[in-house]
């Protein structure tokens, strides 16, 4: 039993690397995802994670590191969303949706031009968690550290933003400035995580653990901690399933994260029906 649960990570270095990388991705995603969920920015997070694709594709085409392309792609996405929302009366949802599909299509078009890319496309979208190096893990750690530090410094404006951008403004924290910082944090998380879980699935780790945590936590700090626990469990469970069942690693992690959310939701239903018999009128 012990060998079934822990053996894969002890006997295989690639599994240990995957676990370390995954836990660090979970940390960045817990910190950033908490604010993404509190502010209802899920769609932007989704768009950023897809906007990365053409950037990575172009970078690979030019022989540059994929990370550079990912960063360029997400920056283009942020600037694009800002431009469309400012210049037209369209809601940001429409702007995001438009760019999201456009960037994804562009990415696929670029990739489809080159035959040697078809394998890479799968890796970009779904990551290669079982093939990351210790250097990748270190980069992941650096990003987790940077994101956590930034979130700590900006915790008050970020909280106010999720309550009301107007309250952030009248409290002396310009809403626009901190909104931009938050978008950059989402972008950073997506960019450094793309190797581990892929651009498509990083979104799962960004949203699912934080959303599960939001069901139970009443304070931001608790929410982040819970989100990390949910994310870590997803990483561990996903990798274990991937090893024993011989299924894709990144997808397993995202799948476990989603399943955990639904389990948390059902659990919440049960606990709140019990709760409601005590406080009948607080709905």
């Amino acid at each position, binding site marked *: 039993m012990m060998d079934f649960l822990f053996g894969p990570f002890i006997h295989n270095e690639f599994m240990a690397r995957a676990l370390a990388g995954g836990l660090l991705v979970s940390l960045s995603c817990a910190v950033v995802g908490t604010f993404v969920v*509190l502010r*209802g920015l899920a769609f932007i997070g989704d768009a950023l994670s897809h906007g990365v694709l053409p950037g990575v594709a172009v970078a690979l085409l030019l022989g540059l590191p994929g990370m550079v392309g990912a960063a360029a792609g997400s920056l283009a996405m942020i600037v694009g969303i800002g431009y469309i929302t400012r210049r037209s009366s369209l809601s940001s949802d429409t702007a995001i949706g438009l760019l999201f599909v456009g960037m994804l299509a562009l990415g696929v078009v670029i990739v489809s031009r080159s035959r040697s890319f078809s394998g890479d496309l799968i890796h970009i979208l779904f990551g290669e968690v079982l093939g990351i190096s210790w250097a990748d893990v270190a980069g992941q750690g650096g990003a987790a550290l940077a994101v956590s530090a930034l979130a700590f*410094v*900006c915790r*008050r*404006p970020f*909280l*106010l933003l*999720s*309550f*009301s951008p*107007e*309250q952030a*403004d*009248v*409290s*002396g*924290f310009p809403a626009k400035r901190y909104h931009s910082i938050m978008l950059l944090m989402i972008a950073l998380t997506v960019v450094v995580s793309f190797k581990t879980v892929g651009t498509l699935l990083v979104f799962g780790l960004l949203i699912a653990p934080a959303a599960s945590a*939001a*069901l139970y*936590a*009443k*304070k*931001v700090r608790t*929410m982040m901690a819970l989100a990390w626990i949910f994310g870590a469990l997803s990483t561990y469970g996903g990798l274990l399933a991937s090893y024993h069942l011989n299924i894709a690693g990144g997808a397993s992690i995202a799948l476990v994260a989603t399943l955990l959310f639904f389990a948390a939701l059902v659990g919440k239903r049960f606990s709140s029906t019990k709760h409601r018999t005590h406080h009948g*009128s*607080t*709905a």
Partner: protein
Amino acid sequence: MSDPAMSADSCAEPVVQARGLSVGYSTDAILSLLDFSVGRGQTLALVGANGSGKSTLLKAIAGLLRPMGGELSVLGGLPLATPARVAYLGQFHPSGFVLPLCVAEVVRMGRFAARGLFGKFGPADEEAVHEAIEAVGLSDIADTPLNELSGGQRQRVFIAQALARRAELLLLDEPEANLDAASRTNTRRLFAEAVGRGASAIIATHDIDAAAACDHTMLLARRVVAYGPSAQVLRADALLETFGVVGRAEGDKVVVVGREHGHEGCDHAD
């Protein structure tokens, strides 16, 4: 005492002073060439129907909206120059999503302006938060998440957040929205206490009773219909004009006969 500008002058320096102030969005001025002032410990009611400009004026004073013209000074400087000294309670448009954060966590945000990015929360901050939650009667559910509260309870949380600021100037946009009669009475008492301690308040409302309790009233209908001491301004003919209501005065009562437009207004005024 009949001229509000005069009574404001009797204080050393008005808390809010507007000269030739115009406010609005992009190129569309909603209110033009306003002159008014609010002295220390004074209260001003902005009364008008929806779209009359009262929220717009309040936003300009809060520093959320740049004036289109004229001068506006708040606590001796530009709006937003000293965020910790001004509390702004905006109108909340309830959407499907409400924060899962608990009451205490939301009220604590009221102290962020005073502490900035790095300032440590001290006993004074905790006390202000605790006192504000107690004042609005939410101590029992301080640990309950906002998304499990009723509309009225949420409004009381927002009021507590504004009170926790312990500001010198309170800018309140429809503070009594969603409140039941008991909470309304309590809220008025709380604001009166803050004013008793020397704070000034500007309150946007369409409740005539709430306005009558203020020192001065400005009746707005995309222009100033009347401005002066509340007792003189809150008269039947001026109110009718403000709310675009066709009616007649019968003694102390205003009887509404019809409305020019479908604004939510006041059906009666004593």
